[in-house]
């Protein structure tokens, strides 16, 4: 099912939670709503679900306006953060509840509940109560209950945030595979950028109720169009510097501090001619130790992260984070030579916080 949001707005009294969001979701697409907590992503989802009524704007399912449809007439399934299983009902009753409300025959309910339970790997737990299940099993029941009525749109509200880290990773894969196998259009709300980047076909970044970007994960990571996205996406976060762009003999240079002059390659030349200071961003993975061309600095801090060591150095007043192989055994106060891969640098306007490279 195609979903269109047009100028979707939600106000709670004087507070605007969601402001004029425009989105198109293609049939079968997996879209993530990503943003910090309180940014309006769940409010948007609840409007799509029909639990909240939009203050302004429209929601279209397959071209039909559904603003005034109650949730049960929207052909949706929803998975909640707390799972929201009915504690007084068994797993079977939980799974078959949507069918019971549709007044389907008992036999069909039994067959369908068993089929869904087997698909979710909880076939043997039908008689248990939710209180007797582990978090992961409860999550599967919640997912099964959302799927049993064969919805055309699946809505997820931070479904993995109550699971432990290891289970979260495996459920991430399972949900993604299930979604692709069933081909159900899905909206997935999360504040975890890794979940969004690994699972979604397209990501809508929302901040303060305003849509910041709506694009695929690769674009979001490599071509962030605002400073907020650059900071928010990527782990460890992007290093950001206050620099002045200087022109010398037709070439542009940036000065992040300590008297450094970094040549800006043609591919990264700001589109607009800028005067004064701009924000330069460079990701930790684009900073390398280079004993020939690098500049001198000292290791300020080493944070072992298992596969990599996260190194912190100082350039001017800015902490620079980057990753090295633990085999190098860097220690605090070691002298090293660093090189920034300027082909991967980003530039942002200090005032508008918009990208000077992509717009």
């Amino acid at each position, binding site marked *: 099912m195609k979903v269109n949001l047009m100028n979707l707005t939600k106000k709670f009294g004087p507070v605007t939670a969601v402001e004029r969001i425009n989105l198109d979701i293609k049939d079968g697409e997996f879209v993530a709503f990503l943003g910090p907590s309180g940014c309006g992503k769940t409010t948007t989802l609840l409007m799509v*679900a029909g639990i909240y009524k939009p203050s302004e704007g429209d929601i279209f399912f397959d071209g039909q306006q559904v603003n005034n449809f109650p949730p049960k007439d929207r052909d949706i399934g*929803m998975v909640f953060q707390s799972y*929201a299983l009915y504690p007084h009902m068994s797993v079977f009753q939980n799974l078959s509840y*949507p069918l019971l409300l549709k007044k389907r025959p008992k036999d069909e309910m039994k067959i369908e509940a068993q089929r869904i339970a087997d698909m979710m790997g909880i076939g043997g737990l039908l008689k248990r109560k939710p*209180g007797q299940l582990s978090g992961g099993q409860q999550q599967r029941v919640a997912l099964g209950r959302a799927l049993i009525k064969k919805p055309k749109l699946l809505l997820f509200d931070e479904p993995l945030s*109550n699971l432990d880290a290891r289970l979260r990773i495996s459920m991430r894969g399972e949900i993604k595979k299930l979604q692709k196998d069933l081909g159900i259009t899905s909206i997935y709300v999360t504040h975890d950028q890794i979940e969004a980047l690994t699972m979604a076909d397209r990501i809508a970044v929302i901040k303060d109720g305003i849509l910041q970007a709506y694009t695929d994960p690769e674009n979001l990571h490599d071509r962030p169009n605002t400073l907020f996205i650059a900071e928010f996406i990527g782990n460890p976060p992007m290093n950001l510097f206050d620099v002045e762009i200087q022109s010398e003999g037709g070439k542009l240079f940036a000065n992040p501090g300590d008297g450094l002059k970094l040549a800006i390659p043609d591919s990264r030349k700001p589109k607009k001619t800028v005067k004064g200071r701009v924000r330069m961003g460079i990701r930790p993975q684009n900073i390398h130790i280079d004993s020939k061309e690098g500049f001198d600095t000292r290791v300020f801090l080493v944070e072992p992260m298992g596969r990599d060591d996260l190194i912190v150095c100082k350039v001017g007043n800015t902490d620079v984070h980057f990753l090295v192989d633990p085999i190098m055994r860097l220690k605090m106060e070691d002298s090293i030579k660093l090189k920034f891969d300027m082909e991967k640098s980003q530039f942002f306007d200090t005032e508008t916080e918009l990208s000077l490279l992509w717009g």
Partner: protein
Amino acid sequence: MRKIIARILEKPLTSYLLLIIILSIMLAPIIFTALTSFKTRAETFRWPPSYFPEKLTLEAYHEVLFRSPIARHLLNSLIIAIGTTTIVMIGGLFTAFGLSQYKFRGSKTVLLIFIATRIIPPISLLVPFYIIMSVLRLINTYACLMIVNTFLWYPFAIWMLKSFFDKFPRELIDSAIVDGCTRTSAFLKIVIPVSAVGIASVAIITFLWTWNEFLYGIIFSNTRAVQPITVGAHYFVGDELVQWDSIAATAIITALPGIILFSIAQRAIVKGLTAGAVKG
């Protein structure tokens, strides 16, 4: 000095001693009543009083249950208490859920007004209530006693129920609505069963308070056909003789439903129906 007090308070013996002292003060009248109910009438008038009955006798119970209209009063109390509890719970559940989940302009004021009705001492409302009831020709009816008791316990019920519903996980209601419930059916099929323990305790307390109510009972009814048990016990106080043994036996009989209901409720609460509703 402080240290010594702290050391004394830390001893488990201290807390047991304190409990024994407080409980004996609280239980003494009840125990004395129970003992009196097993005495012969002659013994109840002895001075100085005897604490333990010289001869255990069920004479008082026999008289109360078979030779006095107390059974009728028990039935009246049961009808009034069940009626009141039903009205309070059906109305209170919807009122409390509405005030808790669907906030509207002035919903806080409505709640405050409900509670404010209980700030006024019930005794000061006897006259206006009496006039209203006599105009409506309801004096001496079950309906009248149910109405005044509903007035007395409704604010408490919605106040308690609202606090349960305030804590009810919103997602559970949303989930039921996505699954195909209406607001009302989500309330009836999900919210009420999940909150059953809390609702049951409010119902039991409403029942017991109505059962124990005396003041409105004695003012608004004056025939044995409708008077509740609390008022009925009063008949054993005569002009010339107070039948202490019968009063004591009636008091014990009256207390029984309370004791039974509370022991059942306690078990239900331990069962913890709400466990596993949401992971938190």
